[in-house]
């Protein structure tokens, strides 16, 4: 084998090894199993959300109205979880909600973690004035009541598109990540192996991208799971308050329909499923994060994953 090919296979083996080592720790954590199980369930739901409209157009979560039903009905064989006030199938809405939750949660978390990591690394590495400015900015964003600002934005610009919601969540949730990554960068910056590459004449770019970034990425990855939780909560809150994307069915949106049509205490088959799903997916990502925390670094602190 060529030396290059050998390197590659070595790297592959190494990744596998690292993964298996991590997995060995993870699997000892029963809470991690619960989180993973729940996530698998929700992933299955999200994947299955494409099926009902194919069976019959009346199962389309948004546009599919059962022609024979004009008011909210309880569960039946035709509609497993019943229908909403205008005869749309709640079960297919629930499945579609899972898809939206993953979409919003993961993309918003990814963006906020990407921004937070970039800011944290820059701030920690540069130090001095740049550090002060970036961290004060982070403080300012952190103390802003996210939900309130989003409400004001929504009031100003009218209906928000789902991607706008994602973007806004990302914009508000990066400072926490930035602070943690900055702290980690600070501890790395003065490690002898970084000093060694400086002595070797490495540029700042090289030091940041090849030496500091790979050492903070596991931490960023961990933070992503916590950010997913908070993104889903924020989206659900916005949708419930009526500031979500009205063209998308999300669990928060379903709750808003329950509320607005006055079925809050009349239709538990309609109220409970989306509410439970929001709680459980939040819990699932949180448990996943907790278990991964143990794998990545036992000394890491926990982070809250609430709204705002």
């Amino acid at each position, binding site marked *: 084998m060529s030396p290059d090919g050998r*390197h590659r296979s070595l790297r592959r083996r190494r990744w596998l090894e690292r993964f298996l080592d991590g997995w060995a720790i993870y699997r000892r954590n029963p809470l991690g199993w619960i989180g993973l199980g729940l996530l698998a369930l929700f992933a299955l739901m999200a994947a299955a959300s494409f099926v009902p409209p194919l069976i019959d157009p009346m199962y389309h979560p948004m546009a599919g109205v059962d022609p024979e039903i004009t008011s909210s009905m309880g569960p039946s064989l035709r509609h497993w979880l019943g229908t909403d006030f205008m005869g749309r199938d709640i079960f297919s809405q629930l499945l579609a909600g899972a898809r939206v939750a993953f979409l919003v949660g993961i993309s918003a978390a990814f963006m906020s973690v990407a921004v937070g990591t970039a800011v944290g690394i820059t701030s920690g590495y540069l130090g001095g004035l740049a550090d002060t400015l970036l961290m004060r900015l982070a403080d300012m964003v952190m103390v802003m009541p996210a939900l309130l600002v989003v409400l004001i934005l929504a009031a100003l610009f009218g209906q928000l598109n789902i991607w706008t919601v994602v973007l806004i969540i990302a914009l508000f949730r990066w400072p926490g990540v930035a602070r943690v990554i900055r702290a980690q960068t600070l501890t790395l910056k003065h490690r002898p192996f970084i*000093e060694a590459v400086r*002595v070797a*004449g*490495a540029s700042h770019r090289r030091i940041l991208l090849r030496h500091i970034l790979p*050492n903070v990425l596991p931490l960023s990855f961990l933070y992503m799971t916590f950010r997913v939780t908070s993104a889903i909560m924020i989206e659900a809150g916005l949708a419930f308050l009526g500031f979500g994307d009205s063209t998308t069915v999300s669990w928060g949106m379903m709750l808003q329909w329950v509320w607005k049509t006055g079925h809050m205490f009349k239709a538990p088959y309609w109220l409970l499923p989306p509410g439970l799903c929001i709680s459980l997916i939040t819990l699932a990502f949180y448990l996943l994060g907790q278990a991964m925390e143990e794998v990545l670094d036992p000394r890491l602190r926990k982070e809250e994953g609430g709204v705002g």
Partner: protein
Amino acid sequence: MFELEAVTRHYAVRQGPFRTRAVLRAVDGVDLAVHAGETLSLVGESGCGKSTLARLVLRLERPTSGRVRYRGQDLWEMDRDAVRRFRREVQMVFQDPYASLNPRMRVAQIVGEGLAIHGLARGAERDARVRELLEQVGLPPEAAGAYPHEFSGGQRQRVGIARALAVEPRVVVADEPVSALDVSVQAQILNLLQGLREDRGLTYLFISHDLRVVEHISDRVAVMYLGRLVELAPAADLFREPLHPYTRALLDAVPVPDPDRRREPRVLEGDVPSPIAPPPGCPFHPRCPDRFEPCDHRVPELRPTGTARAVACHRCG
């Protein structure tokens, strides 16, 4: 190779219940020259400023005042190209072989990084160079594919040495290269460094707190105390006849592996004073067994005594 001229490095620190500003004098007016081809050892207790001096010499830190010159050029007046050249010619071996290697990189990447940065070799050529270097420091070529955590301390230090040698430097600054290692491994690493020096005509600035380590490899020895040089002498002279009372105390503290030749150790009393509030006069006078009248108010300068020696003591010269 290197000339240090009245080099001072102060740190601003905040201390006490009111976080008052204070100045820590890590290096306080050091004049020193490192000649081409020699091994100059810098010894002293921990906290005496020897590592700071190394960092100043390596251009990792800027002196508060004074100048550090490399081959006549001030380190902080160099242009980009000169800095690049400097980074190739001056390399470092670190104290802690565990912390000085990136845990997420394989040995081939660690050792080959300098080659990559300076564009000296790429691809298969770089791999070949890395293997050659590993062989020179006594590691099997298979080590290239391994991660640092798979090695013992001594082997890691060999990796660190290979990394330093990769760019074919003229000067190697070794900051306590063996103090984190077992005694049996220390000798191996010292022999390796010694051999490499002869093969490659290297200049060493060797930093250590352990006089036993220094004795066999140095041409000259500089003794530091509280940020100042107190004695500078050819190694043989210094070990035969130490002039400064601090040097004598250090030598007395070296255990002698001969039960019949037991020296009466004169143990120094007290601790090293804080570099934030150094004592007036000679920094060593509070602990000095030979202090007399001028010691507590006049700072002794490093004065030449005889040939090639210098000492900073009111008793001598």
